[in-house]
C-alpha cells in the first residue's frame, strides 16, 4: 500500500543488467508530494539506474513504479508527462539555439506551444539573454541551466536532478539551490542525486542512502542529523595531562596521545552546547587550565561515510 501523499511510489524494483550485474535489489521507496528528496550513494550504488527506470531510459527487471498516480509501464504517457529529467551528462544539441531546443522539449512532451511559459522558464534560469545563442557556445554552467529549462518546459510535477551541480562553480551552485527551492515553492517535487553531501544537507527535506543497489536508510534530514549526528567538544589544555583525572571520568571523554587535548563526544540528539558548558565547569572545578574550547557538529558526510562503511564487510 502506498500512502496518499506519495507522488512517486517504487515497489520491489529490481534491475539486473545483461552482463549479470544486479544494480537494484528489490528497492522500495516513496517520495512525498512537494518534498526535496536527496538520494545519496557512492559511485555505482544504483542512483542513476533508479532514476533511469522511473524516467523510462532503463527497463526494470521487476517491480513497479507509480508516478503521480500513473504506472510508468502500463500508463507511460501520463506518467512521463509528469516527469522532468535533468541528466548527469551535459548532453545538448550543440548547434541549436536555446530557444529552439527548449521549445522542442515542450513539444516532445506533448504540450502545445506556449512561448510565454518558455520565456518564464528562461528568465527564471537567467537564460533569457542567451535565448538566441547556440548551446555549444555556452559555458558548462549555462548548459546545465539549459538542461534544467528543457526539463521544466513541459511543466512537470516531478523533477529528477541527477548530480545537478557536478562541475558547477560555487556561485552557480548557490544559484541552483535557490532555483530548486523556488521550484519546490511552486509545488514541484524534487528528487536529486548527489555526491556533495553539503548539497543534500543544504536543501533536502529527506535523505535516502543507497549502496550496492539497496536503500540502506531513509530519514528526515533533521531526524537523521539528530539520530546519527555527533557533537565533538575539543578542549585545548594549557599543560598536558598524563591521564584523565578521576573527577572527570566519563566514558565519552578521551585524552589525546600527547595529553594536550581533551575530546568529549556527545551522541545523537543530546545538546552539544550544554555538554560543552558542563565540561568547562567540571574542568574549572578540577583546577585544570585550558586555552581553547571548540564545538563541532558532525556533517551529513560523516554520517554517510559511517553508514556505508558499517555496511561493508
Amino acid at each position, binding site marked *: 500500500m502506498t500512502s496518499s501523499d506519495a507522488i512517486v511510489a517504487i515497489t520491489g524494483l529490481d534491475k539486473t543488467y545483461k552482463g549479470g550485474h544486479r544494480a537494484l535489489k528489490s528497492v522500495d521507496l516513496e517520495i512525498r508530494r512537494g518534498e526535496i528528496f536527496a538520494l545519496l550513494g557512492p559511485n555505482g550504488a544504483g542512483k542513476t539506474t533508479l532514476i533511469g527506470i522511473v524516467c523510462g*531510459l532503463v527497463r526494470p527487471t521487476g517491480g513497479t513504479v507509480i508516478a503521480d498516480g500513473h504506472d510508468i509501464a502500463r500508463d507511460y*504517457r501520463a506518467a512521463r508527462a509528469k516527469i522532468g529529467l535533468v541528466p548527469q551528462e551535459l*548532453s*545538448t544539441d550543440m548547434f541549436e539555439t536555446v530557444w529552439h531546443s527548449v521549445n522542442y*522539449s515542450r513539444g*516532445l512532451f506533448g504540450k502545445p506551444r506556449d512561448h510565454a511559459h518558455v520565456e518564464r522558464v528562461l528568465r527564471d534560469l537567467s537564460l533569457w539573454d542567451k535565448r538566441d545563442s547556440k548551446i555549444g557556445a555556452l559555458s558548462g554552467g549555462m548548459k546545465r541551466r539549459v538542461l534544467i529549462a*528543457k526539463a521544466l518546459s513541459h511543466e512537470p510535477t516531478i523533477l529528477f536532478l541527477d548530480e545537478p551541480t557536478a562541475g558547477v562553480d560555487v556561485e552557480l551552485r548557490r544559484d541552483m539551490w535557490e532555483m530548486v527551492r523556488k521550484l519546490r515553492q511552486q509545488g514541484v517535487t524534487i528528487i536529486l542525486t548527489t555526491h556533495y553531501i553539503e548539497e543534500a544537507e543544504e536543501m533536502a527535506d529527506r535523505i535516502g542512502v543507497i549502496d550496492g543497489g539497496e536503500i540502506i536508510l531513509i530519514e528526515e534530514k533533521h531526524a537523521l542529523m539528530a539520530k546519527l549526528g555527533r557533537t565533538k567538544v575539543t578542549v585545548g589544555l594549557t599543560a598536558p595531562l598524563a591521564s584523565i583525572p578521576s573527577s572527570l571520568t566519563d566514558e565519552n571523554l578521551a585524552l589525546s596521545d600527547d595529553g594536550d587535548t581533551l575530546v568529549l563526544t556527545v551522541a545523537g540528539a543530546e545538546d552539544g552546547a550544554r555538554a560543552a558548558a558542563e565540561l568547562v565547569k567540571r574542568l574549572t572545578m578540577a583546577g585544570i587550565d585550558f586555552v581553547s574550547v571548540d564545538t563541532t557538529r558532525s556533517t551529513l558526510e560523516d554520517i554517510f561515510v559511517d553508514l556505508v562503511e558499517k555496511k561493508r564487510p
Partner: protein
Amino acid sequence: MNIHAIRAIYTFELGRTLRTLFQSLASPVISTSLYFIVFGSAIGSRMHTIGGVSYGAFIVPGLIMLALLTESTANASFGIYLPRFTGTVYELLSAPISAVEALTGYVGAAATKSVVLGLIIACTARLFVPYGIVHPVWAAGFLILTSITFSLFGFILGLWADGFEKLQVVPVMIITPLTFLGGTFYSVSMLPPAWQTVTLFNPIVYLVSGFRWAFYGQADVGVGFSLGMIVLFMALCVAIITWVFKTGWRLRT
C-alpha cells in the same frame, strides 16, 4: 496520439536540414548536374536512343533514384544517430511518445527532404534534357514510397551504427554500388544474358525500372513487380523497427 511530439521532431529535423542547406540540397544537385554533363551531354550524344528515349532523358529517373536512395538513407540514419552520439536521445526515450510517433517524426522529415530533393533534381535535369512524364501519379507514388522506405532503412542504420564510419559504410559501400549496377545508366537488356540474371538479384533494379516506367512507359521488369518489391522492403524495415522498439535494442538498457 502525441501530435505535438510528432510535429516537434518533424520540424526539428527539417530545421537541421535548413541549417545545412548547402550540404543538404546544393551538393546532390551539383553532383547530379555533373552526371548530366558527363553522361548525358558528353557521352550521351554518342549513344543510341534506348527504346526510343534519348540517353540523356533515359538516365533522369535513375539519377533521381540514386539521389533519393543515398540521401534518404543518410538523412534518416544521421537524424537518429546524432542524438545517440551526443546523448540527447535521453529526452526522446523519457518523453511520452510511442515508437510509431517517434518514427513518424524522424522518417517523415527525412522522406520529406528526399521528396523535395527528388523534385529539385527533376527540375535541374529539365535544364539539360527535354523529357516528359507519362504516368505522373505513379512517378509521385514511386518517389514518395522510395523516400519513405529508404528513410526507414536509414533509421535502422542509424540505430545499428556505433560510429560515424558504420554510418558512412552502408550508403557508400552498398547503396551507391547497387544503384550504379541497378540500371541507373543502362537498360538491363543491354547486358549479356548471364549478367541480366545476376542483376535481377539486385533489389534496386526494380525501383529504377518502376520509376523509369512511370516516366517513359517502358521498363526492364513489370511495374507491378517493382511496386511489390518496394512494398516488401518497406514491410521488412517496419518489422525490424517494430522489433527494435519492442526490445529496446541499442536504445534502452
